[in-house]
């Protein structure tokens, strides 16, 4: 009896449908979906926190929330949105889409991928367990010292912050390394660097930034915890430390982080927008280079967050100028999108609307950003609601709107069903109008002198009307998000069948069935252009035609192809790991370790450490298959 190829691949790659499979799977598609759902739940939690704040601020002298509760709310809202939503949601898309986009059967390190998800989930729960003991982080998302030192913040609040972010940083870092290696080693034969989709450039740049920037936050958080619980003095001026050390470490991380949460999102738009304009992206090379340039420049501008701290003015001039320069690559990207729309034939699906809205918000957020990069303006506006408006235009505009576009664009690939377009249009317009109604007036509130992070304000300052409008807008925005949730839940079951390529798009992921089989590609494709599925209608790029039927099938065990870093010449067959419980065990060990540190309990911490060490050894120990191959190789 002849075994067909797909049946055989299925047997190798399919994760068992039982509890073991749930806990041990290393399939990038499952992990990607878990990332997306978890990060989206955090978006909802952060949104509920915001809703509480907007209720409190909707009128003067309201007493819905105590000042302490308000402090906790804006802090956990910022932490949630920045760390638990904005970056992980992009990792979710990248995890799901990347291997499909590059014609591979999985990421370079599937078990590391599982580990990165488990740590994300458990560190998120760790931070949120602060709610159970009523000691939520309450010193803002950037937690300036010395307010965070134990004299001024005695509870566990800031320990949850310092330890939680250190813990989460592990997930971000291993995830980033996985993306980098996947980018350079697993692209399908023929997918040379000039054929890589922009979304991958964006995620790659973000990942490299993470590798170099994340440790700065980790160091800051560890030093903070040492100060707080081990009696050290890093941020304590009276014993030779310095509170400004925190600010430097935090913003060395913090500014690159802004690009980390926007570059992959910009990449999503650069890849998806052309599909709805029925033409390739205008200026591919410029956009790719601009992406990389932004990532590099992002490391040179951290001081612009500290203009108001009394630094030497030469330093401020330099960093102010650098902050102006960094707008140039962003402008390149904006021009490329506008040109793509301009020269394209628009198909105004919901995904397109979200991307058009994204471009509009990008421009508004960019203008207010340039204003604050000018040092004198910054002195005027820092710590006012102008900043709150600016940061939401940037983060919601560039991240949330791109993410929504990503959902409308790729969910059909993930679920096999299209989202509803009618509801989708409502979804977009309610969100877009609600957002502008909610956040544009905050610019005005800021110019009227309203400081950020105040839990209430007296009447008679002229702030009441703008704040009421802001609050109404925020609730309208929330309704928009709710419409999306309804649409998603409805479409998963009832949506129209998508088929492999519902948008008639040009990149590799659309050559697979929707949803793709566990092994993604039965035959590893060979790529000869930037748009392998559009070769019949685009002028040839000179390399011949891409192929989906003649290529490697490598069905013996879980295997995929390793290619060279630049030209993607096939180099070797890579053996991929089986499903494994070690990632979960390792992440659980770390959880115990961090709870042990939280309560300063050596026993719990020791147990956690021991489990972690055992898990690492078990993980790295060669599998039976490898040992067998060793036996065979022996003379």
């Amino acid at each position: 009896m002849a075994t067909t190829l797909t049946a055989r691949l299925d047997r190798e790659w399919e994760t068992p449908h039982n509890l073991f499979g749930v806990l041990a799977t290393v399939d990038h598609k499952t992990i990607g979906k878990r990332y997306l759902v978890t990060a989206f739940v955090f978006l909802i939690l952060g949104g509920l926190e915001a809703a509480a704040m907007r209720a409190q601020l909707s009128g003067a002298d309201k007493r819905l929330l105590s000042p302490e509760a308000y402090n906790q709310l804006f802090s956990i809202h910022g932490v949630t949105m920045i760390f638990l939503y904005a970056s992980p949601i992009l990792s979710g898309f990248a995890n799901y889409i990347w291997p499909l986009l590059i014609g591979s059967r999985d990421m370079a390190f599937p078990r590391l991928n599982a580990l990165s998800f488990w740590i994300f989930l458990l560190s998120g729960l760790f931070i949120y367990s602060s709610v159970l003991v009523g000691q939520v982080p309450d010193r803002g998302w950037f937690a300036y010292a010395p307010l965070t030192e134990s004299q001024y913040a005695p509870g566990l609040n800031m320990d949850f912050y310092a330890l939680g972010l250190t813990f989460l940083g592990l997930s971000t870092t291993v995830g980033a390394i996985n993306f980098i290696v996947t980018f350079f080693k697993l692209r399908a034969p023929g997918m040379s660097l000039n054929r890589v989709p922009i979304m991958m450039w964006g995620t790659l740049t973000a990942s490299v930034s993470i590798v170099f920037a994340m440790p700065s936050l980790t160091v800051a958080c560890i030093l903070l915890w040492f100060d707080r619980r081990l009696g050290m003095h890093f941020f304590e001026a009276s014993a030779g430390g310095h509170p400004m050390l925190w600010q430097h470490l935090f913003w060395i991380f913090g500014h690159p982080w802004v690009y980390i949460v926007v570059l992959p999102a910009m990449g999503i738009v650069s890849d998806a927008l052309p599909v709805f304009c029925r033409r390739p992206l205008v200026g591919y090379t410029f956009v790719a280079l601009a992406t990389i340039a932004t990532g590099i420049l992002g490391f040179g501008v951290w001081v612009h967050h500290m203009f108001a701290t009394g630094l030497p003015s030469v330093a401020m001039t330099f960093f102010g100028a650098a902050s102006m320069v960094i707008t140039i690559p962003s402008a390149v990207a904006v021009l490329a999108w506008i040109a793509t729309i301009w020269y394209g034939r628009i198909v105004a699906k919901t995904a397109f609307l979200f991307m058009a809205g994204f471009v509009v918000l990008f421009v508004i957020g960019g203008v207010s950003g340039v204003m604050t990069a000018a040092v004198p303006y910054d002195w005027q506006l820092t710590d006012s609601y102008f900043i709150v408006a600016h940061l939401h235009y940037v983060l919601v505009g560039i991240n949330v709107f791109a993410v929504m576009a990503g959902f409308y664009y790729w969910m059909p690939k993930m679920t096999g069903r299209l989202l509803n377009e009618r509801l989708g249009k409502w979804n977009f317009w309610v969100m877009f109008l609600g957002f502008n109604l909610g956040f544009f007036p905050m610019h005005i509130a800021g110019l009227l002198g309203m400081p950020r992070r105040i839990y209430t304000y007296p009447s008679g300052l002229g702030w009441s009307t703008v704040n009421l409008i802001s609050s109404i807008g925020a609730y309208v925005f929330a309704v928009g998000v709710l419409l999306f949730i309804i649409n998603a839940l409805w479409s998963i079951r009832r949506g129209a069948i998508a088929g492999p390529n519902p948008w008639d798009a040009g990149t590799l992921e659309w050559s697979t069935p929707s949803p793709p089989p566990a092994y993604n590609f039965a035959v590893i494709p060979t790529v000869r252009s930037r748009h392998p599925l559009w070769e019949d209608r685009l002028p040839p790029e000179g390399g011949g035609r891409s192929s989906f039927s003649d290529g490697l099938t490598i069905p013996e065990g879980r295997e995929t192809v390793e290619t060279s870093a630049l030209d993607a010449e096939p180099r070797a067959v890579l053996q991929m790991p089986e499903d494994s419980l070690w990632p979960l065990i390792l992440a659980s060990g770390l959880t115990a370790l961090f709870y042990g540190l939280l309560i300063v309990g050596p026993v719990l911490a020791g147990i956690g450490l021991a489990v972690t060490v055992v898990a690492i050894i078990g993980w790295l120990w060669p599998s039976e298959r490898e040992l067998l191959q060793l036996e065979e190789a022996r003379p």
Partner: protein
Amino acid sequence: MTAVPAQERDLHPSPAPLPVGGRESRSPGRWGMIWVVATEASFFAYLLFSYFYLASMARGAWPPDGVPELKLSLPNTVILLLSSGTMWWAESSIRKGRAAALRIGLVVTFVLGCVFLTIQGIEYSHKHFTPQTDAYGSLFYTITGFHGAHVAVGLLMIAVVAVRAFLGHFDRGRHLAVSNVALYWHFVDAVWLAVFTTLYLTPR
């Protein structure tokens, strides 16, 4: 599976057989380790940045109670460098297929690493200040402590690889684990040179 791909057909051998595993020096596993080292190196760079920042902001003498002595730390530096040499020897031996030399090299490196940590401990016990004394004390113990922790992790990795070496897991073509542990160990030594220069030499 919902849809049957067009390529459904009987199994046939791959068109151009590729080597399974391929060259280890270019493999994803190797790349992964290089990036782990990159992020760890940044971690130490930020620790040393903190040192220089607080040093530049210090109002009194720096270090507050005199420059740290070289009596123990200099020989200790030599020991760690030596261990890099033995590690290098171990790795290049297995590249040539000499499994016995690999085992010896790993064991010697392990012992030298343990000696380093012991001397470090002795130096700690001679210190007149603690991490709680002042910011300098916090920096000194945090920086050397994190380095020491990395040495300990390196030792654990060497131990595991040594056990595998005795089980005969490595040969001329398959020794990625050895190469990665070696890379990590050289990195830990390089960090020590940076730490040593910062803490012991720059204040002189």
